[in-house]
């Protein structure tokens, strides 16, 4: 895997990466994949497929045991981990908000830890909150537990954007929301992503979400990458039975049509 000749439009590249734990469990096996600038790449798979491990390799929460991950043209092993993490946003289920900080402080945190003064960090937070559709005046002084799930998720996105609007990693970000709220937040997120041209790597087990948000899908199973491509490629041209079955079982009949209910 010596693709050192980098596509200028590649934001993140996994080059033959594997992750084997000390107990010899292989969570990821020899995966090569790339996320291009400005696209939403959905890592799709059942639990245990290795999709989250693959995502966490990007910010070195789960370092690979072989192969390498290249971010912004530089292998992650050449980055200082702190600097690497500060260069991208990260959103998890429920947003991963700090329960002891106000909404405003939560969003400002990304800037504050990098030494930005209180006032400019606050302005940045106000701007990002407005961007995700939360009224900073109304919600800024609230604590996370006083917000609804959808609102918390928006705050999580705002915080990620405050860290970087170039690259955001998302791990099942909308999983805890009810279907209607989820749809709403997804739509808003997509609009925002298009507007800002943010590169997004999204982990999900929900095929419908992957198809709705993802420009490209990467289907993983037991640590291996089965297929990448546009959603329609999977329907029309599955590489093997497993891919076909996954799509059939997940009720993918509606996918091609971007199924509203």
């Amino acid at each position: 895997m010596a693709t050192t000749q980098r596509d200028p439009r590649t934001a993140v590249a996994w080059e033959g990466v594997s992750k084997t734990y000390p107990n010899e469990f292989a969570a990821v096996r020899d995966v090569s994949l790339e996320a291009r600038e400005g696209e939403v790449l959905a890592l799709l798979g059942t639990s245990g497929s290795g999709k989250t491990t693959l995502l966490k390799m990007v910010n070195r929460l789960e370092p690979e045991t072989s192969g390498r991950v290249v971010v912004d043209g530089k292998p992650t092993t050449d980055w200082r981990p702190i600097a690497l993490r500060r260069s991208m946003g990260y959103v998890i289920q429920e947003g991963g908000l700090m329960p002891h900080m106000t909404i405003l402080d939560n969003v400002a945190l990304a800037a504050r830890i990098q030494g930005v003064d209180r006032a400019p960090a606050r302005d940045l937070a106000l701007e990002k909150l407005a961007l995700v559709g939360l009224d900073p005046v109304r919600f800024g002084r609230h604590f996370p537990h006083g917000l609804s799930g959808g609102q918390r998720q928006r705050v999580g996105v705002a915080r990620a954007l405050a860290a970087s609007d170039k690259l955001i990693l998302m791990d099942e970000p909308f999983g805890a929301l009810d279907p209607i709220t989820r749809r709403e937040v997804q739509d808003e997120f997509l609009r925002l992503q298009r507007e800002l041209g943010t590169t997004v790597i999204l982990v999900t087990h929900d095929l419908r979400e992957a198809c709705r948000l993802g420009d490209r899908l990467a289907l993983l199973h037991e640590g291996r990458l089965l297929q990448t491509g546009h959603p329609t490629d999977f329907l029309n041209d599955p590489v093997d039975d497993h891919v076909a079955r996954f799509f059939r079982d997940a009720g993918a009949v509606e996918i091609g049509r971007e199924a509203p209910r």
Partner: protein
Amino acid sequence: MNEWLEFLKGEARPLLGATAAHLELVMEALLLASLVGVPVGIVAARRPKLERVAMGIANILQTIPSLALLGFLLIVFQGRIGKPPALAALAIYALLPIIKNTILGLRSIDRGVYEAATALGMTPWQRLRHVELPLAAPIILGGVRVATVASVGMATIAAAIGARGLGSYIFRGVSLADTRLILLGSVPAALLALACDASLGELERATNPERDRRSRLRTIAASLAVAILVGFAGWGWWLENGSSGEGRETLTIGSKDGTEMILLGHMLADLIEERTPLRVDRRFNLGGTLVCFNALRQGGLDAYVEYTGTALTVILDEPVQTDPDAVLGLVRQELAARDDVACLKPFGFENTFALLMRKEMVDQWDVHTISQLASRADELRAGFGPEFMNRPDGYPGLTEAYGLDFAIPPREMDRNLLYQALGRGSLDLAAGDSTDGRIAAFDLVQLEDDRRYFPPYQAVPLVRVETLKKHPELRPVLELLAGKIDAATMRKLNREVDEYKRRPEDVARDFLRRLGLRTAPLSRSG
């Protein structure tokens, strides 16, 4: 009721000072324990191996009986009595709940929050400061609160090694069988514990991130309460350290427990203060011969009063002798040679162990000597103090000398409680001091030691030779009372305190005044 008010009025100011000193000791100990415990907890929370070691050590330290720990620390601190060893003991006991709760608090943090903090690019230090510690704070504070409440109680025991605080009231109350003094020590201690518990509990709730936002008023109230407690403790610190000024040199005079020792201690201290420019720090009611003597030898005390017989058998570990002058000579020579301690002239009375019974029982049984007791020993319920039970010139030798065969094993209890227990009929026989005022107070009779088993003990001031060299004027002052107090006088003075409940410092002062050794006016109380 009036009597109570009068008593309270007399004690109000020293009591307030003792309460402040008590709180200050507890707070310093907790500060120390937190400074050690929280970092240890933080490190241990990350390393399971270290956690086992840290928790193991803290657990073991927790199980050491408090008096044993104090005794041990006294050796570690080379005989320095008072605050340093007390502080160390309290901090050691406070360690376990603080380490435990720090680990617990850090472990309880939501995985997602922890991961989000890392993914934001926080350095480990930033994560600890801005995320982990604030989130663990309520649980850590909970540990501090538990430790504080326990320390308030524990700190009373520290009076045994001369630490200031409420414990001195309790110890004095126990040794004088004075319930008022015991209450005076324990009621404020209980109130302190409640106040600490309530204010820290409120603070704990205030640090909870999911608290009710309307509770701001209570948060302010709790912070205010804690601030007042800290201020009060600060005053206690100032009393001890700040106000002693003017650069006058201070001598530390100690005393063993018991009325007689406290009285003699006050007399020596008064004489020094009256007749030399020196100040005196009084550390009375210390827990036992070896506490006092080790402190004296290593400089924690400058002087205290000891019995020659005790010095011979307990300190010098020599066999029992019965000739008073021979004992005094031997003790004087040995202590000077071995420990650089001077044994001054005796006060003039002899105090010896006395076997006591209730008068009505003596009359009924018609026994007057210990020999006469031998035939009826199997019916007796006897009680002895711990020192008597274990000293070669105490219980072991006594049974041998008189062939006493107690069918009921003697109860070992605090010697100050023996008089009461005997007087109230829960014991039939007890060993006391022949000069004790409570012998008359409880209507007890001393059995004659017809085989001259108990060695006579003369009371003498023991002083560090170094102190005497530095202050040559001291020796004549300390010997002003030599030969001035006979057994009858001593018993009378003891009785003033034990039966008539007068303050020992007043009794001592009035006595000096009557001898013309002190010019200060007679006290009005009593």
